[in-house]
């Protein structure tokens, strides 16, 4: 049966990650980093991976990982979403890792263990906006070399290895120094996208692209809901805190009923999102009812996370509009997340087929 709660171990994991992020991922630092040459925080990545072993949660112990499940990875993502942490956890430790796990062990052994340890970072070279059932671009294979250009690749700028779908139906591992990665100016500066150009790049075939990409995007979409939950909850918490403090008309702004009701409605949505996100994480962990649980979570999560960030901005008033205040980190991540791994609308379309509610 679906377990929608958090275990004691999961709560302990949450506390550990939150402690680390509180000390090493303060909003001011994240904002400053977004405009630097290194938007990703690799020191934080090292603490999360080498220090805590979190990149290997989804990888079985015999393949070099921690042998945990999507439930634990979801808790990590809640905390990373709360902090809008600029680390490639979702893209490398979830999506690229799932793609590798879909391929045969003997082809991926070293690479899987590398990603699980966090020593190397991987990126699936499929546009971030692609839904689990959606079409994706593949590169040409000529004389055993890969040719083509792939766009919208999240966290490619920091990847050591790219997992590239090719027109021959294969998924290839390509070293980052064999391709040209051009960062694009991204809406979400904490998870920037890049264009990846391959001009006769050497690649090693890992397995079939189609099932690997499907599985990777499905897991990414399902666990993204937990990132969105953490983000939405933080936006709500911070807004409630501010509105108790901020005074206008000689009283706390949070005492005005028009605002109280908006925050109560938002709280209700966050409570609902928690159930949807836990349902998706639990389904992925058990491998049961995955398609519906993930589609439901993604059809629900994105509008809630965006709404939470938008409400946070509006209810903070002028201060929320400044570059200095962190609410824009949440807004930009939430809006970019609403496109990641398929829009809410794309997931609803998928549900129409899954639960037999056919279009006219």
């Amino acid at each position: 049966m679906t377990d929608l709660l958090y275990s004691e171990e999961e709560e302990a994991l949450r506390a550990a990650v939150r402690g680390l992020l509180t000390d090493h991922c303060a909003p001011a630092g994240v904002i400053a980093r977004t405009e630097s040459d290194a938007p990703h925080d690799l020191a934080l990545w090292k603490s999360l991976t080498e220090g805590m072993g979190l990149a290997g949660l989804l990888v079985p112990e015999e393949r070099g990982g921690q042998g945990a499940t999507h439930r634990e990875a979801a808790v990590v993502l809640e905390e990373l979403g709360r902090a809008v942490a600029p680390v490639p956890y979702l893209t490398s430790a979830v999506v690229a890792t799932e793609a590798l796990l879909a391929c045969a062990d003997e082809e991926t052994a070293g690479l899987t263990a590398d990603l699980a340890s966090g020593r190397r970072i991987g990126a699936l070279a499929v546009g971030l906006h692609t839904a689990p059932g959606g079409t994706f671009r593949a590169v040409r294979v000529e004389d055993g070399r890969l040719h083509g250009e792939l766009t919208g690749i999240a966290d490619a700028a920091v990847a050591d290895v790219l997992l590239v779908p090719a027109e021959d139906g294969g998924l290839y591992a390509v070293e980052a120094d064999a391709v040209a990665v051009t960062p694009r100016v991204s809406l979400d500066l904490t998870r920037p996208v890049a264009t990846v150009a391959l001009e006769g790049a050497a690649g090693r075939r890992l397995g079939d692209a189609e099932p690997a990409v499907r599985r990777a995007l499905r897991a990414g979409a399902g666990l993204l809901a937990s990132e969105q939950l953490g983000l939405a909850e933080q936006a709500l918490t911070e807004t409630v805190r501010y509105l108790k403090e901020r005074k206008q008309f000689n009283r706390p702004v949070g005492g005005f009923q028009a605002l109280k009701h908006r925050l109560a409605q938002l709280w209700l949505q966050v409570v609902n999102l928690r159930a949807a996100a836990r349902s998706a994480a639990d389904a992925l962990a058990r491998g049961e009812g995955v398609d519906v649980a993930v589609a439901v979570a993604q059809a629900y999560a994105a509008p809630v996370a965006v709404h939470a960030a938008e409400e946070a901005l509006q209810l903070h008033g002028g201060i929320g509009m400044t570059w200095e205040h962190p609410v824009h980190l949440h807004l930009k991540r939430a809006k970019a997340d609403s496109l990641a791994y398929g829009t809410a609308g794309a997931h609803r379309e998928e549900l129409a087929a899954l639960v037999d509610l056919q279009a006219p």
Partner: protein
Amino acid sequence: MTDSPIDATELRRRTSELLAAQPPATTDRLDFLKARFDAGLAWVHYPEGLGGLGAPRSLQAVVDAELEAAGAPDNDPRRIGIGLGMAAPTILRHGTEEQKRRFLRPLWTGEEVWCQLFSEPGAGSDLAALGTRAVRDDGGTSRSSAAESGGCWVVNGQKVWTSSAHLARWAILIARTDPDVPKHQGITYFLCDMTDPGVEVRPLRQITGEAEFNEVFLTDVRIPDSRRLGGIGDGWRVAQTTLNNERVAIGGMRLPREGGMIGPVVRTWRERPELRTHDLHQRLLKLWVEAEVARLTGERLRQQLVAGQPGPEGSGMKLAFARLNQEISGLEVELRGEEGLLYDDWTMRRPELVDFTGRDAGYRYLRSKGNSIEGGTSEVLLNIVAERVLGLPAEPRTDKDVAWKDLAK
């Protein structure tokens, strides 16, 4: 008594014993229910001697499954929902031993139906403003009897939105016993005999055409002091037990996927492809997702309760349930096209049971309008969430330190 711990195995053993002693096929329904109560298998989380065994509430499902499989009769819980969901937990928590022994057994078996005399024409969301008066009469009148040896109370006033009043043997009643103190302090909680000659029940017809509710007029109704629940002036606190359970009862029903209001509309969608439009499809998918997420939230809430980690999430369930019922049933009327212009029956009737998902789409649409009013309006519930869960400042009050008699009426 056996010393066995009350676990699932032990409950199965006791259920088998009950079934062996009172075979459902040859036992009178009421006799079976009484025996089940006396075996402690009515509500296992209640104390021994009061229909329970002091076992975890989650184990009730074990007993229910065994009895259902054996074809045993149940107590028709939907017919006695107010008794089970509101009166019983309040009597259990605040009643005297004598009251618990007198009332809980016939309440649970359904021999005695209960209703709730709380709301008044002048006291809706502001329930504590109620004006029904209870005045102490220490005996000496011709109607006094041995049962009134502790004195009695004479009650006058009007209550409204009382479901089941026309069927009820007993009522939970709150009335003002002291008008000279602020409103929350002068209220006392009573168990009122609905057969008292001073109780008059009149049907209250609602927008669906039928009358599931009543107005209840109380004229010199005499209630013995032994039927007071909790202390004099303590009625507001006692009533919180009732009201908290009401919200759980309204928002907390366990549902399978596509249970509840979404069920009829998705069936129509699948069976009647000619009714489909693109606009309705988009809206239906959105509501389907929201209904599924609300179901998961309810499931998560139940898992929290079972795990002994009750959270504030319960306050939100009724809000979500009300809005979804209204939006889904509204969509269904539109989906039906020309048939949406029709209504099954406006005849004034007195339904014994209320099924929000029953009858036709028009009925469901109209009845669901009450979901955001009954048991606490959505607006009041949003205030409660904002203040008690989020800790935002309370509404400014002008009525807190004023005697009830001096409030604007």
